[in-house]
């Protein structure tokens, strides 16, 4: 008992001191790609120019405020035009702008150059998580979803916040160091944006369109970012984590993923019983549905409908399956047919039809989902 208290206090103190150390960051994060480095330097150059103008302009202004006051008896002069001066101070900023446009243009050409990548990964924005599909290069065929892994208790303040509060996920994107990674971005619902500041990457993910960006990480490590385009309720809770590994460790990771995929493959013809399917459905629900419909199935009044006792979850199953597969237009209800396997969809529908006050007793088999997809 005492031990637990001591541990908890220790953890809280650690979290606090960690927070205190990192609480004030004054500049862009340390760059780990060439593009991010260029941006970093460009920002420094701009700040230098601005500082000079700042000192010049406000030096003059405050000197004038000090010296040309009525209260110290300064008499107003009457000049109010000087074409030469006016032309000069229109031209000087113009020249400065041309001077900075040059390095900026070079940097743009570089950051837009997504040609000949070593690895191509598609990142798909969902409300509210990211999905990664390795399309080309080493790791081709790997595919997973990446959810926020910060426990709800930390968010509501019932547990001390961890070091990477809100910046941690269950399955990070993993890439090898020193390789050019092209990221294709798209979205399943609304516009999101994929941002990793240390890489100098921020690209909107637009539903129905594919956009791209790229990075080549020079240093092994874990880099974190967040969704940068308002995408609804949990916009603040869909972080991006990229783990950069040395080449051989990356190869090992790819092998592991392959094995996992093979092991996780479901037999599509298996007949499930209620208890097993419900247990699986509970996990699917927690990962995909809970943000809107809530753990108690009550939804959020007026915004997200309740499932507990709802007509949908207690009425004909065909309609229920259709909504989960295809979503509902004009609402945040996504078409999960595109995201989840037949077994997962069967499981989550079975779960919602047999949980809380819902007691249909029905078991929806994956084969039903498969035929509903056609």
């Amino acid at each position, binding site marked *: 008992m005492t031990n637990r208290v001591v541990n908890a206090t220790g953890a809280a103190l650690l979290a606090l001191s960690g927070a205190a150390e990192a609480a004030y960051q004054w500049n862009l994060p340390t760059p780990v790609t060439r*593009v991010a480095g260029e941006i970093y330097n460009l920002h420094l150059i701009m700040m230098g120019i601005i500082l000079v103008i700042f000192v010049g302009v406000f030096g003059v202004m405050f000197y004038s405020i000090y010296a040309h006051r009525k209260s110290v008896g300064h008499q107003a002069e009457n000049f109010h035009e000087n074409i030469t001066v006016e032309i000069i101070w229109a031209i000087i900023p113009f020249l400065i702008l041309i001077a900075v446009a040059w390095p900026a243009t070079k940097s743009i050409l570089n950051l837009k150059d997504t040609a000949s990548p070593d690895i191509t990964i598609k990142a798909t924005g969902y409300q509210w998580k990211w999905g990664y599909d390795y399309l080309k290069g080493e790791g081709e065929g790997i595919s997973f979803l990446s959810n926020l892994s910060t426990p709800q208790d930390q968010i509501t*303040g019932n547990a001390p916040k961890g070091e990477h509060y809100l910046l941690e996920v269950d399955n990070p994107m993993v890439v090898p160091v020193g390789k050019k990674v092209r990221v294709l971005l798209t979205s399943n*619902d609304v516009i999101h944006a994929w941002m990793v500041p240390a890489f100098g990457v921020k690209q909107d993910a637009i539903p129905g369109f594919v956009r791209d960006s790229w990075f080549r990480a020079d240093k092994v490590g874990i880099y974190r970012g967040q969704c*940068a385009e308002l995408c609804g309720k949990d916009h603040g809770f869909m972080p991006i984590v990229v783990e950069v590994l040395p080449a051989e460790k990356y190869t090992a990771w790819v092998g592991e993923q392959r094995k996992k995929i093979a092991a996780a493959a479901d037999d599509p013809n298996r007949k499930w019983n209620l208890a097993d399917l419900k247990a699986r459905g509970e996990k699917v629900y927690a990962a995909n549905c809970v943000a809107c419909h809530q753990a108690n199935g009550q939804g959020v009044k007026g915004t997200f409908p309740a499932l507990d006792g709802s007509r949908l979850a207690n009425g004909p199953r065909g309609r229920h399956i259709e909504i989960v597969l295809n979503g509902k237009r*004009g609402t945040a209800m996504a078409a999960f047919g595109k995201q989840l396997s037949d077994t997962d969809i069967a499981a989550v529908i079975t779960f919602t039809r047999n949980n809380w006050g819902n007691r249909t007793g029905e078991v929806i088999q994956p084969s039903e989902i498969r035929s509903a997809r056609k």
Partner: protein
Amino acid sequence: MSAVIDSGHAHDEQAHGPYGGIMRWVTTTNHKDIGTLYLWFSFTMFLVGGVLALAIRAELFRPGLQFWHPEFFNQLTTMHGLIMVFGAIMPAFVGFANWQVPMMIGAPDMAFARLNNWSFWMLPVAATLLVGSFFVPGGATAAGWTIYAPLSTQMGPGMDLAIFALHIMGASSIMGSINIITTILNMRAPGMTLIRMPLFVWTWLITAYLLIAVMPVLAGAITMLLTDRHFGTSFFNAAGGGDPVMFQHIFWFFGHPEVYIMILPGFGIISQVIPAFSRKPLFGYSSMVYATASIAVLSFIVWAHHMFTVGMPTAGILFFMYATVLIAVPTGVKVFNWLTTMWRGSMSFETPMLFAVGFIFVFTMGGFTGLILAIMPIDIQLQDTYYVVAHFHYVLVAGSLFSLFAGFYFWVPKWTGRMYDEKLGKWHFWLSMIFFNVTFFPMHFLGLAGMPRRIPDYALQFAGFNEIASIGAFGFGLSQILFLWIALKVTVLGQGERAGQRPWDGADTLEWTHLPSPAPYHSFHEQPVLG
């Protein structure tokens, strides 16, 4: 000219005066009454929007979710933006135009007096729809003030109410602009040539053209949104052959000129105040006019700098980046002209001048960060972070709002015949200035560190600066209560020293040289003669 009779109400002394009581305000076609209505309306909306801002900052004081659900938090940020832009800043400048434009050009009233009444009275209706949308099922729209599709097509009925409200406010703005343009072009006193007009009138003339050009564009965008939501169209839905990014292009084609709509009249006010308190004519009058016009023209070809991260072709990025940095040239000219106006003047620092100098200081900082954001590679890091939040609050709060305060303190003696409380006015300035910077300066660092905007909760590394910003925000909010008291004292309560016709010895426009304080209910029955 009519004599001024002392009464609590400054203006109802004429034989053919207005109705008494509430009907005076409902039926009025008098530019001064309507100006007053606009100003009180906008100040009310400013307080409403301010309460929403404080609700946001309270949640962000510490990491974790303390007060609001994320969905409601998004409603707060969205409605704060919409209310401040369309309810507070824009109507406030129209209020100044109503009061000042006729007096400054020697006209008896606005050109279309009944239209003027109508353009105002649409606003409370729109505001009721907008604020009322909090109480419909699902609450207010939570798609951000930019209401990007397709997020906005997901929203509940609150979004529809916001769309209707924006339509009505847009109609009001267009009518107001037609009125202002007609007044300025047709009703100037003999001798008041265009190139002799006070700069405030000039900036409003240009602003009114901007409004007429872009409010219909916004109306088009939100109408398409409405039909996408309810009538099965697919303008912004890729599944139906539309394009979500098209919404952004249309929105920002409105949105960027809108930014200048909210600042150009502010430039005008500052260009009246600085010479008056420097006791020296405005330096470079004609270059100021040309600079204003070129900012207005440039504002139509820079919109996509709000969209550097949507994935535009390289040529598009380069065009919009070059066009954007070009704006620094006319803006720089303006700042240099103001400084040169002050240079070797005989300055005194009453509250209007404090706000004007404060304006130059903080607005220029907003201009600097604007330059940083215009450089596309840097914008890749800063787009949609708190850096952007800091930038546009520097130009909108410290820019537009401070210029409105400067204008209020400057002209209120003319409007009421009384001087505001100078000591409290100075307190108001210093508190506003300090707390403004405490609130928004740290946000630059948050943005550089990568904190996205519009999030209800944040990672621990952002905790320190958020705490400071929240403290500053509450200080800034409370300082505006002081302003409410100052304004009530001098207007409604009629307290304060009596103001002479020309309480500012450097002020030389018609309202100071030709009209008593308070300005009579009907001014310039006979056209003034200008030398």
